[in-house]
């Protein structure tokens, strides 16, 4: 009996891996520019910013919430960081201040969700507007140039052959992995998302856990915004629109349940890679971006449908 369950479990895990490999094979056959060393890092660099957001989002969804404000936090962080540097601040200090600002946004979201008991969808829908507005106000509606060359290395530099954003993405992945699968906080996140009253009856401070995941998510979004600003040589108040949906799609593709309580870091990473490879491959094949959107949607639906029937 147990063996059957385990076999089914690993099968449903493999479905996504198989799909991923299949996508890679198909693109490799269709274009000889796809399966190359350069393109490999290219894809990884492309997914790194969205990937970092998706990892934070994964924690929020497992904990039973949702964070729609990440795209706006991303834009705000980019403009603020570039603005502070323009004002003459050292770029490391600017990054720290930007991250601190993200903590405040996270606390704000968490406060209304956990303490005031408002639905996370509504709270973050509101803060999504507010923070986007703040980004426009701060930047007066136009991009702020990033003038520090060291800062611009964050998005464009390499360590050896590996792009810096990829390294940052890997570091964040490792950190989120440790939080979710090795720490007490991880157990608590599953507990609160899976059965909140049980968590409370077990003496877990559920509010603290909920607030924490929003703070982590906002910090991930801010880091992602900083990297993007560095890569684009400017902080743009319009950046990151729709980033929350990409992050949710990646998490869901990776098997994170929307009702909370289940999901994995490895799953989300796989989800990010699938989306990244799709985007990259379709670009190489010169598929117009309008068609790309339609295809992306279809693939998300299909992937999750297959996952569902496998689980049954």
């Amino acid at each position: 009996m147990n063996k059957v369950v385990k076999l089914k479990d690993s099968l449903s895990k493999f479905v996504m891996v198989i799909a991923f490999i299949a996508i890679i094979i198909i693109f490799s056959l269709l274009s000889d520019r796809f399966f190359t060393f350069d393109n490999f890092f290219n894809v990884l660099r492309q997914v790194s910013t969205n990937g970092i957001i998706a990892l934070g989002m994964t924690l929020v969804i497992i904990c039973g919430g949702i964070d729609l404000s990440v795209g706006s936090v991303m834009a705000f962080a980019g403009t603020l960081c570039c603005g502070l540097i323009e004002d003459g601040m050292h770029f490391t200090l600017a990054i720290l201040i930007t991250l601190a600002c993200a903590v405040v946004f996270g606390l704000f979201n968490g406060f209304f969700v956990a303490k005031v008991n408002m639905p996370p969808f509504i709270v973050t829908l509101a803060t999504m507007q507010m923070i986007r507005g703040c980004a426009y106000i701060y930047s007066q509606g136009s991009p702020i140039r990033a003038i520090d060359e060291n800062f611009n290395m964050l998005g464009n530099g390499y360590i050896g052959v590996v792009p810096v954003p990829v390294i940052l993405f890997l570091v964040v992945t490792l950190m989120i992995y440790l939080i979710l699968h090795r720490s007490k906080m991880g157990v608590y996140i599953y507990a609160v998302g899976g059965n909140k009253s049980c968590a409370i009856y077990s003496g877990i401070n559920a509010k603290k856990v909920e607030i924490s995941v929003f703070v982590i998510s906002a910090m991930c979004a801010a880091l992602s915004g900083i990297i993007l600003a560095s890569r684009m040589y400017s902080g743009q108040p319009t950046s990151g629109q729709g980033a929350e949906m990409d992050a949710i799609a990646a998490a869901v593709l990776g098997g994170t349940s929307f009702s909370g309580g289940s999901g994995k870091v490895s799953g989300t990473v796989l989800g990010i890679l699938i989306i990244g490879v799709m985007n990259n491959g379709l670009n190489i094949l010169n598929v117009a971006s309008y068609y790309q959107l339609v295809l992306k949607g279809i693939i998300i639906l299909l992937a999750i449908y297959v996952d569902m029937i496998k689980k049954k």
Partner: protein
Amino acid sequence: MSENLLLAMEGITKTFPGVKALNNVKLEVMPGEVHALLGENGAGKSTLIKILAGIYTKDAGEIKINGEIVEISSVNDAKAKGISVIHQEISLVPKLSVANNILLGTEGKEVFINNKKRREIAQKTIKELGFDIDVDAMVDTLSIAQQQIVEIVRALATEEVKLIVMDEPTASISEKDVDKLFATIRRLKKKGIGIIYISHRMEEITQIADRLTVLRDGCYIGTRNIDEISMQDIVEMMVGRQVEEMYHYNINAIGETVLKMKDVSSQYVHHVDFELKKGEVHGLYGLIGAGRTELVRVLFGLDSYQGEIEIQGKEVKIRNAGDAMEHGIALVPEDRKKEGLFLENTIYFNSVITILKEFMSRFRIKNSKARETTEQYKKMLKIKYTDSQQLVGTLSGGNQQKVVLSKWLAAKPDILILDEPTRGIDIGAKSEIYDLIFQLVKENVSIILISSELPEILNLCTRVSVMREGRIAGHVERKDFNQKEIFKYAMK
């Protein structure tokens, strides 16, 4: 005497908006004692336990542990005082392993967890208690019975435990595991641990408890030694009125066949032949997982099936619950919270939802007529509430069950399926439901009664079909009723 007490709760009072849940209640437990806490639904047992567990705070009164006055204002406070609770509803985290569930909340200050150590502790505890469960299994892959055992193990895994509260711990575990639980309880007694035991199964209480305390309507009624009191007296204390014969039942002349299943199979049940006659109470007995619920799910159109179903002599296809209702079938499901009620809605909403069509005039609902119906069933079923605009979730278990019943009775079914209608409710409400079944049969309703309590089946049914592993293992007529016969079919 009071020096020796492990726990003394004195003058405990708790008021919720509109209800005085507890009024000057007393509860005393000695070390090494199993103390049964009894009372009808809404008597205040759960509230008292939740105060002890730190989930609610009391309005007045004092709690002493080992003679010292303590304040319990949070779950962690209660834990620190050595109080451990097995809650009535299974409260586990589905996507965490058994080990993580057992040790949930014991992490203390550590940031990272040592999975290997946690597994070992969990394994050891499970083994010591004589149970057998894989510590790595995700809780959502376990059966209900196994989950209940995990819950029990969890309450016992805390090291400094002095007092364990067990709220209906045996509600869904097998008899073998009940024996193991009782063996564990006896071992805990020897260690001087006090146990507060809540159960609606009288035979368990006489078997395991030393003393008992009865609550009624939020008031303390009395404490007795178990060997100095008869079952009849206990019931009287709980209900507050003379109960003559708990199960009285007469059979009407049974009419023609109203429902016939011929060789019906679904994913879970196989080749079932089943017949229900007018004015019959047809029992479905079997162990947990024997396929009883799954069989009635077919009848109510919830699972697809092969085979033939005849109603009033005509072959019908039941594709969904709407079809079933059209053929006069109603189902009172096993899990009232998940399947029976809209907990977040009012009593009124729940009572009229199945018959909304009758109150429609064009596009409007005629509220006055609907309210009348709600009132009518409130009286008929003696449901206790002050305002029909109250949320159903705020009612006690027995009253919730009555609302589910009223919802289906309002639909005026010919065939009423009751799946464990008295699970987790007290003797008073039980006998009211028995009376109701008796009344309905007189009105020519045919009833299918699923129950895991053999006495209930034996007393109420005109005939019983026993299921085992998704099949009908045998039928027993009322004149041939005896426990052994029925068990033989159920057990194999």
